[in-house]
């Protein structure tokens, strides 16, 4: 099992966001979490990435409870996040966006890191954009760069926050294919979205967030 979320709860001051949420994601599995705006889907993803502290429960990735882990260098290599607004670094080129974290973490020697970047650029079909800056890219291209950047650390789990919100239908389909390819390579994928069509297309398991609870909805296969 890649991720095991055990009874986690989160509230902001006196406002409860979710309570006793549990689920697990296996390697190569794509799990979609859907729900209306304000149900706490994004907060759940932020908790998984330790951007918000949970009030109770455990988040186990590869046997490590990352909710107790303080070192982002360790967390960053276990779980990745593709933000809704991508959060690319505007002053860095596409290639630099990809290289900055693995170079800082000294994940490998520079040649191997560059090779990995080139492979991801090819996989995500953004060849020729290496020296461009984020403002020169379309929404779909930015999304691909954000995915490539998150994949550079080869995390066990990759989270997507509303990955299709800024994309047209055609680009959504292409991103769907990219995500499926990553899952086929063994990455566990968690997608938060309210795009029903996208959920139908990509979700192998669908969880619905409602009133602070998470329910398993459909089992495809």
């Amino acid at each position, binding site marked *: 099992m890649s991720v095991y979320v055990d009874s986690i709860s989160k509230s902001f001051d006196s406002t409860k966001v979710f309570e006793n949420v549990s689920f697990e994601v296996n390697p190569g599995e794509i799990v979609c979490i859907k729900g209306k705006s304000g149900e706490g889907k994004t907060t759940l993803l932020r908790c998984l990435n330790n951007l918000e502290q949970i009030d109770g429960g455990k988040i186990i990735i590869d046997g490590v409870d990352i909710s107790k882990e303080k070192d982002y260098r360790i967390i960053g290599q276990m779980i990745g996040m593709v*933000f809704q607004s991508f959060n690319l670094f505007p002053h860095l080129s596409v290639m630099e966006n990809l290289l900055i974290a693995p170079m800082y973490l000294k994940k490998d020697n520079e040649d191997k890191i560059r090779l990995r970047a080139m492979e991801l650029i090819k996989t995500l079909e953004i060849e020729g954009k290496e020296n461009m800056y984020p403002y020169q890219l379309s929404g779909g291209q930015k999304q691909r760069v954000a995915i490539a950047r998150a994949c550079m650390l080869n995390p066990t789990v990759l989270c997507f926050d509303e990955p299709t919100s800024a994309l047209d239908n055609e680009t959504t389909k292409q991103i769907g294919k990219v995500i499926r390819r990553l899952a086929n390579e063994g990455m566990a994928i968690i997608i938060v979205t309210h795009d029903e069509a996208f959920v139908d297309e990509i979700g192998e398991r669908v969880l619905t967030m409602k009133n602070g609870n998470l329910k398993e909805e459909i089992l495809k296969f």
Partner: protein
Amino acid sequence: MKIFEMLIPMTIEGLKVTLGVFAVTLIFSLPLAVIVALLRRSKNKLISGITAGYIYVMRGTPLLLQLMFIFFGFHFVPLIGYSFSRFQAIYIAFILNYTAYFAEIFRAGINAIDVGQYEGATVLGMSKSYTFLKIILPQVIKTVVPAVGNEVITLVKDTSLVYILGASDILKAAKSVSNVYSAFSPYIFIAFVYLFIVAVLTKALSMIENKYNYYR
């Protein structure tokens, strides 16, 4: 012509003071301002409070008064009783004053950076200091260049305040020559020297702005 025979060498000597104070102030106050801006943003109320107090005093009192206070005032402080030399006092006053102004500009620049930039770096495993140096600061510099440029130009003109401590800058040179010859022309000449310095700086600042125009 005799006026210029006296004015030009004195202006050159004065330029050493004017440009010296200008350069020393910039070299020290810009990096210090980044640190002060970060301290001002500290979650520790004591640290941010002390920093806010420092900025308030520096921005709330005239630089002329600060120059006099540091040069003459310390002599009267019980227990310390230490006197700074003329140029020590000038450098300290200018650096302290300009650090406060630059710090507020940097603070505004840091506040303007989207929180997503910090979060993007955090989930990629980058430390806070690395994130600040490699992700935040380069973007802050781009946003603050115009405002810093304004202060830099003001600094050139503020250097004329050193006369209060008896230092001879270019304006003092003009005044001396004007007194000797009972002429106004040295002031006109010096006005053009200031304008020339500011023209060079304006060009340099515009080049720095262009350097950061490679992204949006």
